[in-house]
Every structure is written in structure tokens, then in C-alpha cells.
């Protein structure tokens, strides 16, 4: 029938027009024309082939894992940003909380260690002294305490969608790092107020924080994966971190530790890093580079191991959560 033929012609012209000129003006509700870029992509680029095999604990998973992580780097960024914005949503004080916690702790410890007990700080005002220890410590401990619960918080996500799971604990680290930066500004203000000079030695703090972040990441990865299987980890962690804080020189200085125990202290890399941070920032001196080098080496060894463990455990996380 002539009418039918006419219709067909119109239809073919329309589809041809849609293919040649990609103007999505006809129907704005439809997503942009997907035929064209898709065909081009499939012809030009070889598609990546992914092979899924039973899980194994091997260092090779570290490299494949890192490659996938790079592909998902935007998710790490997005998730970290939203960690921060969600945390302060529907709170009146908002971002001030990032500064409030270390300030409050500083107040309490200053009260205790200047009025009740006395701690030698080699001449530095105690508030500045304790803040310089709390700053890296809070970064380290809040990363771990948040990250440990990160994976089990949203079981729905883990059983329904795939993305590299390490992004969850790592996003907590990025969020804590942002808090660290906010608190650093307070630190600078405190130093100004108490006339503690800031020297170029403070730049040592940058590599120290990087090493500390590496440690925090290794521990967060290991324990958050373990937490999926054994919730004991999450139950023990607050207590563990509290004890840990008093075994590292946060509220007191390493100098006030008797010499015979000091070696024992430096076995804990966190002690060395926090002491190094403090020395370089408030004392304006060169930190113990040997101990920092040792810590870096430890991070280089432990982080890949923790990551390999995480990746091998990730494979069956959805089954046991």
C-alpha cells in the first residue's frame, strides 16, 4: 500500500539522520546517542580481557589490584569527599568538628599534665607540645577506627556491587588526612600564639606524614578485612587504640622515658614517627633520620603484605559478611 511505503521511507530517513548528524534534539529525555561512539570504540580499541580465577594469596595480586584501583581512582576521590560532607551533614557546627576534637583533647591533657602531673617538654608550652603529638596520632587512630568498621557498615553494597573494596578503608584515610590538614592550621595558630618559631625543619613533617599514612593504610586494610570475618576486631579496636596512644609519646615526650626503655619504644614505628613529627615541627630540629628510614622500610614491607591479604580476602568477602 502506498501509505505504508511512505511511512517506511520517512522512518529510514529519520534513522539515517540520527546516525549521521548526532543531534539529540529530537528527544531530550533519551540518553545521548550510544550507537555511534560504541561502534567506533569496539572497532578501534581492543577490549581488555579479565580472567577471574579462584583466590590466592600472592604478591602478584598487589599489582593487578593497584591497576584496578587506578581505574577506580575517581571513586576513591568521590567517596572520600562524600565521607567528609556526610559526616558534617545535619550538624550545626559542621566542619568545626574537625578542629574541635584535637582542641578539646589538648585542653584536657593540658589540664592534667600541667596542673595534676608534670611532664617535661624541654621548654615548649604544653598545649603546643601535646597538640603536635595529637595531630599525627588522631590522623592515624581515626583512620584505623573508622576504616575497620567501613566494610561491614554497608553489607548491601558488598554483596550487590563490585568495586575494589580497599577504596572503602582508603577513603576513610583520605577523610582523616583532610581533618589533619584542618587541624594543622590550628597548630600553626597555636604556635603563633605561644611564640614557637616555625622553621624549615617542619618540612620533614611531610615525608613523616606520608610514611605514617602508609602505616595507617596497611593496618586499616589488614584489620578491616579481618573484621569482615571476625567482628572481634571492631570490638577490640577502640581499647587497643587507647592503650596504644599511651605507649607512644603523644602526651609525654620521648625524653621523659628512661633510657633503658627507649629502644623498646622505638620498636613501635608510630613512636618514632610521632616523635619525629614533633621534633621537626615544634623543636625546629632534624628528626632521627635513621628511625624514619627504618619506618619507611617497614611500611614498604608491610603495606604490600597487608594489601595482598586484603585482596585475597576480598574475593570471598561477600560470602562471609
Amino acid at each position: 500500500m502506498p501509505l505504508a511505503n511512505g511511512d517506511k521511507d520517512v522512518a529510514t530517513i529519520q534513522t539515517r539522520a540520527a546516525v549521521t548528524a548526532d543531534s539529540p534534539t529530537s528527544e531530550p529525555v533519551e540518553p545521548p546517542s550510544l550507537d555511534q561512539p560504541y561502534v567506533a570504540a569496539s572497532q578501534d580499541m581492543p577490549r581488555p580481557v579479565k580472567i577471574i580465577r579462584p583466590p590466592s594469596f600472592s604478591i602478584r595480586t598487589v599489582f593487578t589490584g593497584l591497576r584496578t584501583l587506578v581505574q577506580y581512582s575517581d571513586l576513591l576521590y568521590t567517596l572520600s569527599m562524600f565521607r567528609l560532607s556526610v559526616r558534617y551533614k545535619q550538624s550545626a557546627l559542621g566542619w568545626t568538628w574537625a578542629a574541635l576534637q584535637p582542641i578539646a583533647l589538648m585542653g584536657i591533657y593540658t589540664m592534667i599534665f600541667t596542673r595534676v602531673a608534670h611532664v617535661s617538654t624541654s621548654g615548649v608550652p604544653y598545649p603546643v607540645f601535646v597538640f603536635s603529638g595529637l595531630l599525627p596520632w588522631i590522623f592515624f587512630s581515626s583512620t584505623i577506627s573508622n576504616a575497620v568498621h567501613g566494610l561491614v557498615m554497608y553489607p548491601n553494597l558488598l554483596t550487590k556491587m563490585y568495586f575494589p573494596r580497599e577504596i572503602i578503608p582508603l577513603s576513610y584515610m583520605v577523610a582523616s588526612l583532610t581533618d589533619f590538614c584542618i587541624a594543622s592550621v590550628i597548630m600553626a595558630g597555636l604556635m603563633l600564639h605561644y611564640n614557637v618559631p616555625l622553621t624549615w625543619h617542619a618540612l620533614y613533617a611531610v615525608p613523616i606524614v606520608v610514611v605514617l599514612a602508609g602505616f595507617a593504610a596497611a593496618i586499616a586494610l589488614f584489620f578491616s578485612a579481618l573484621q569482615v570475618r571476625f567482628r572481634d576486631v571492631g570490638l577490640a579496636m577502640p581499647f587497643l587504640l587507647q592503650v596504644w596512644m599511651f605507649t607512644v609519646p603523644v602526651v609525654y615526650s620521648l625524653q621523659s622515658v628512661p633510657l633503658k626503655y627507649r629502644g623498646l619504644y622505638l620498636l613501635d614505628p608510630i613512636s618514632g614517627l610521632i616523635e619525629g613529627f614533633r621534633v621537626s615541627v615544634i623543636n625546629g630540629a632534624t628528626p632521627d633520620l635513621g628511625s624514619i628510614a627504618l619506618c619507611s622500610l617497614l611500611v614498604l614491607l608491610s603495606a604490600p603484605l597487608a594489601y595482598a591479604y586484603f585482596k585475597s580476602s576480598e574475593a570471598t568477602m561477600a560470602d562471609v559478611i
Partner: protein
Amino acid sequence: MIDLQFSHVSKKYRLPTDGDRPKRWYSRALRRKSGQMWALKNVSFSVNEGEALGIVGHNGAGKTTIMKLISGITTPTSGEISIRGRLAALVEVSSGFHPELTGIENIYLHGAMLGMRRSEIRKKIESIIEFSGVGRYIEVPVKRYSSGMYVRLGFAIAAHLDPDILLLDEVLAVGDAAFQAKCLERIGELRKSGRTIVFISHDLAAVYRLCDRAILLSHGAVLSDGAPRQVIDEYQQMTFAGQGDSADDETDSNKPARCTGIDFSAPESALGIRTGYPMVARLSYTASQPVPDAVFRVSIYWPSGYLCSQLTTESTKGGYQIEPGSGVIEFQCPDLPVVAGLYRVDLAIESKGLEVDFRQRCATLRVEPGKIAYGDFLIENTWKNTESRDAIRENSVSG
């Protein structure tokens, strides 16, 4: 090119014997043989580029496990899976949403979880918002959304993915009819543009409509692999075999009348029951006492579970009087209008509007292709060209 390949894949789950409790430190010593469950046993199949594969099977047959394995949520116990190209799994459309974040923030978050880059999302965001129809609520935290908005936004994001392989798991089970139609339309579009699709669903009609091929899973093994119609038929037969009422029940003996069988046949045809050709249905019954005002019903159901039609003795003139003994009610259908497929059949006897005997899904009716029919029914018709004088030539041109 093969886009997705399963080679001898098995997946074992450990069933904790004592509830959800994890292993206690002493449990190794007290360990009983902990339960194991093979969700998949030596499963092998492959999907070619541009093919749409449907996976059907009962609950617990291993469909979801296949889904989780493909998407990387979990890994196989043995075997190997290879995936060629970018994969996107459209599982539960809004599982990645964070309630405190606004619509826009969730688009970024969920999109990133689905593997989109920020730049890609930024380019598509207008279109996503428009597609979702959420409107000005896009700036509001999604915890304030209605469940419909939630789902629509979730699908809008997923619909803008640009994957090589698309995994769909029961996505069509959510949302209203209009939304489902939108989903199907979009999936059809993706299919047409050459995407490889793996579709896992209980909606057999959707599998039939969307897929080029289907596999039937049962107890973690591939039972059959072939054309959707054939696989769906097999699946339904398997379903009926497990569900059919047994003919003789203890409770039946005190019923005044009961159905004892149903038989569908095609008179004067060796090709079986076909669309557009005669069919005879013979319903046999026995009665232990007289049943006044009786009505026999043979209900025929679509695969989707909706009533397709019914053969019944019901009439405005009143019912039929059943005398004690047995008999056969024969329904004559001069031309069967339903399209080819496997239908489920219920039988019922009523008396004065009350149920005397009811047998659910006790039989199947298989209809083979006969006269050409599309859709659900054959509409008997004749046609001619009423405008043109030279009708015969016109017909040959347009045909």
C-alpha cells in the same frame, strides 16, 4: 568473538552449622563437619559478542551466584571465567545510594561505583536527571525521596552506562508498569546497538522477548542451553513436574465429585495441537453422590501466571446435574486462537458457585505453531483491498 566464558566453574559455600556465629578460637577442636553447599558445579558456557543470554532456573539454582561471579563480587572455588570488555552489572538499581547525600551527589557516587569516570558523569548528568524525572528534588537528600524516585534515579544512572557487557538481574521486578516499560525499552536499545547482555530473571516472558539464547540452571548445573522458547518450555515442564497435584489424595475420597484427568488432543492432525486448528479437551471426573447445579472449568494460564482463557460449562441457563459414577466432559474448540507455547492448566468443579474440587497446575497444554500469529492471540480475519480497482496487483506490490 566470545565476550564471556565460563570454563568448568564451581562455587562452594560453607554453611555455618551454628547460625551466624563465626569460628570461635576453640571451635577447631570441637569442629563438627561443617556443611558445604555447591552453588555451582562444573558450569561451562559462553556468550558471543552481541548476544543476549537469558538464565532461568528455580530459586537456589545458582543464578545469583553466576551473577556475583561475573560481576566480581565473589570468586569461583575452581574453574575460570574470562570477560572481554567493560562490564556493568545492573543489580539492584539503588544499592549504592547514600541516604544523606543529595540526588546529584548520589549520581556521582553511584556512577563511580558502577565504574564511570567523573568527567563522563559530568557530561551525562543533565541527561541522567532528565531521564530520572526527579526534577527539582535532585538537590534534596535521597532519604527524603519516595521509593519510586529512588528507583528511577538508580535506573537513570545505570541506563547511562556505556558497557560492552551488561548484566541484568531482576531489575524489572521493581517499579511501576511505566517504569518497567522504560527499562525494557532501554535494554532493547542497548541490545540493538550490539551490546552483549546477560539477563537473569524469573520473568519468562521478558527472557523470551529479550534474549537470543537461554540456559536453564538446576541445582548448580546447566540443564539445557538453546533457543529461549525451547529452554523456557523445558523449565516450565520441570516446574510442573514438581508442582502437579497427585491424582489420588486421601482427602479426595470424601469429595462428592472430583476431576480425575484432562486430556488435550488435536483431532485429524498428526502435528499436535496448533494455533488456529481444532482442539479437543476431555475432562474426566468421578462422583460419589449427585452434584446439583455443577460447573466444570478448565483454566488455561500464560507462562506469566495470568489467566489466558477458560473452557467452562458455565451458562446463564443454570448448571449441569452430575449423577454418581464417572464421566467425561468434552470441550470442542474448532480453532484454537492462542499462540504457540506451554500453558499451565487448572481444573475445577463447582456446585452452586461453591468449589467442590480444585486442582491447581495439574496439567500443561502445549500449543505448537500453526497459523501465523503474533502477540498473544490469533485474530481470525480475511482481507482485501477495498479502494483499488486492481486489487490483486496492489497486493503483490506491497507484499
